[in-house]
């Protein structure tokens, strides 16, 4: 028997995967089939809200991608217990690029932004993303986990913290009161030896929240003021407590200043409406966008450039249903052409100018059965390299 035959027979009796192992592998894959959580997430086409301003702000974020690392190995940046696998799995199918625009703080290490924890509020599940700062602290963004509208995808709270809990305390806690009151929550940051926190709300309501990577959060109605938070060690004894901080207002992500004039990229007249899209350079290699659509002149936003572009990023806007809707976006370097396919099976080529596109749909294509369905981006050989399906947003 030659050596190759021996190698072929070496461990040849290894049995195949048990059914439950195969099923677990399939489940893990299926978890990724969920619609990706992008920076722009909408309800279904017919119930889309007119959120042009937010679309422009978020578009700027989408246009600037980054080689963002994500995964278990990154969960040690803050010296504290990482979330268990069950929690980490909630982030597994999410696209971390979607939160980068909200981490526009100069000291945060963007390549190490990752999901930390997720918790329930009355308005839906909320995720906390965090990234370490060069000075040993952390920056954080709270955002609804499963977005259905553009406003859902805006951060509920964001900011940065120092290396230590201030004033020698073992923990700090506050109540976040986002614009949507049912998404309110209490949250905070602890010293290393705090394993969980008892959150005491007005009316005698007490909620227990585990601490992951020194963060904790728990859903709390905006009407219930925070009375106190008690930090507990792993064995349950009290480590410290603290008075509540003032409520945390919803953040305005910092924007780099515009450093050059706006240059029009598209100026489209359709169905009696005018749509204009212009771009301008921003500081730190960033980008400013200026979008004019019916009733909303000069919706502007700027964002720092963060790295490589995604193959296909787009935002959309328009009133629910007829008479019009628009899609504005940009493609990455590998994309040679973009096509928009409609529900009725027809499709149209989307013109690209300097890697941008502005597609306005009117009339028939705003009606059920004929609406835009999917954007397909192809490379120069005709292979589809990216898609954005609109009916799942």
């Amino acid at each position, binding site marked *: *028997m*030659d*050596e*190759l035959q*021996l*190698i*072929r*027979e*070496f*461990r*040849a*009796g*290894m*049995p*195949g*995967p048990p059914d439950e*192992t*195969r099923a*677990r*592998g*399939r489940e*893990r*894959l*299926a978890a*990724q*089939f969920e619609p990706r959580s992008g920076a722009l997430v909408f309800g279904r086409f017919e119930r889309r809200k007119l959120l042009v301003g937010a679309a422009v702000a978020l578009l700027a974020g989408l246009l600037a991608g980054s080689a963002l690392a994500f995964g278990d190995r990154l969960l040690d940046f803050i010296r504290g217990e990482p979330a268990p696998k069950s929690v980490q799995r909630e982030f*597994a199918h999410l696209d971390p690029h979607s939160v980068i625009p909200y981490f526009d703080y100069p000291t945060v290490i963007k390549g190490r932004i990752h999901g930390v924890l997720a918790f329930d509020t009355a308005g839906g599940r909320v995720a906390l993303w965090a990234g370490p700062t060069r000075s040993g602290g952390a920056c954080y963004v709270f955002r609804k986990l499963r977005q259905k509208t553009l406003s859902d995808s805006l951060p509920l709270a964001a900011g940065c913290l120092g290396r230590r809990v201030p004033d020698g305390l073992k923990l700090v806690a506050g109540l976040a009161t986002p614009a949507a009151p049912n998404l309110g929550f209490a949250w905070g940051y602890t010293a290393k030896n705090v394993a969980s926190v008892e959150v005491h709300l007005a009316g005698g309501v007490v909620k227990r929240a585990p601490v992951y990577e020194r963060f904790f959060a728990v859903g709390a109605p905006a009407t219930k003021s925070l009375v106190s938070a008690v930090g507990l060690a792993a064995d349950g004894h009290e480590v410290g407590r603290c008075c509540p901080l003032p409520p945390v207002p919803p953040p305005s992500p910092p924007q780099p200043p515009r450093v050059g004039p706006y240059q029009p990229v598209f100026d489209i007249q359709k169905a009696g409406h005018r749509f204009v899209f212009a771009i301008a350079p921003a500081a730190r290699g960033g980008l400013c966008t200026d979008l004019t659509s019916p009733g909303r002149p000069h919706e502007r936003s700027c964002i720092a450039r963060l790295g490589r572009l995604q*193959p296909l990023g787009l935002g959309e806007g328009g009133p629910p249903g007829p008479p019009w809707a628009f899609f504005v976006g940009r493609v990455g370097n590998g994309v040679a052409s973009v096509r928009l396919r409609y529900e009725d099976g027809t499709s149209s080529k989307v013109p690209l100018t300097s890697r941008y596109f502005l597609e306005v749909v009117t009339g028939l294509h705003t009606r059920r059965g004929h609406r835009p369905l*999917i954007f*397909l981006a192809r490379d120069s050989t005709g*292979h*589809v*390299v*990216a*898609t954005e*399906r609109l009916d799942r947003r």
Partner: protein
Amino acid sequence: MEPDDRAVIVESLAEPTRFAAIFDRHYDAVYGFVARRVGAALAADVAAETFARAFAGRPRFRPGVSSSARPWLFGIAVNLLRHHYRTEARQLRAYARTGVDPVLDATPDVERRVDAEAAGPCLAEALAALRPAERDVLLLFAWADLSYVEIAEALGLEVGTVRSRLSRARNRVRERLAGDEQEVLETAPTGDANDG
């Protein structure tokens, strides 16, 4: 007729659930390859992660000589196995030292092959002594049944490099096995000695 892997992957860009067909077609093969290298316990994780990464990276899938996703999937699996090279070598050396294969021993109801089992410890030692890059090529050839071209696709190598690595790996295994055989012959009692 069933669409080939390439067609399924392209369809999955618009309809992600189509990717399940790729899982169904190739999971057992990928799992089997990984399990033979590092054992069933690690194989479950590595194989699942292989398909999760393949799904995430499917826009970058470029079929090679055939439209099969097999080389691509094995390439991802081998990349993931790089985190477990030490475990693999440690298990092989343990087998060589003790005659008990920790990979098979941890697996119930294993039907062992007599020939391979007899040569097992020597072969384990020979495989452990290979450079990981050589072991990857040799085992993709012997266990995953990939051709030279497919191994080149899987590992991102030139075909010539695959050919030379495979040849070197086979020679080293052959020499190691021959050395062990010689050692057995030299230490065995001979007829002359018995006569004397």
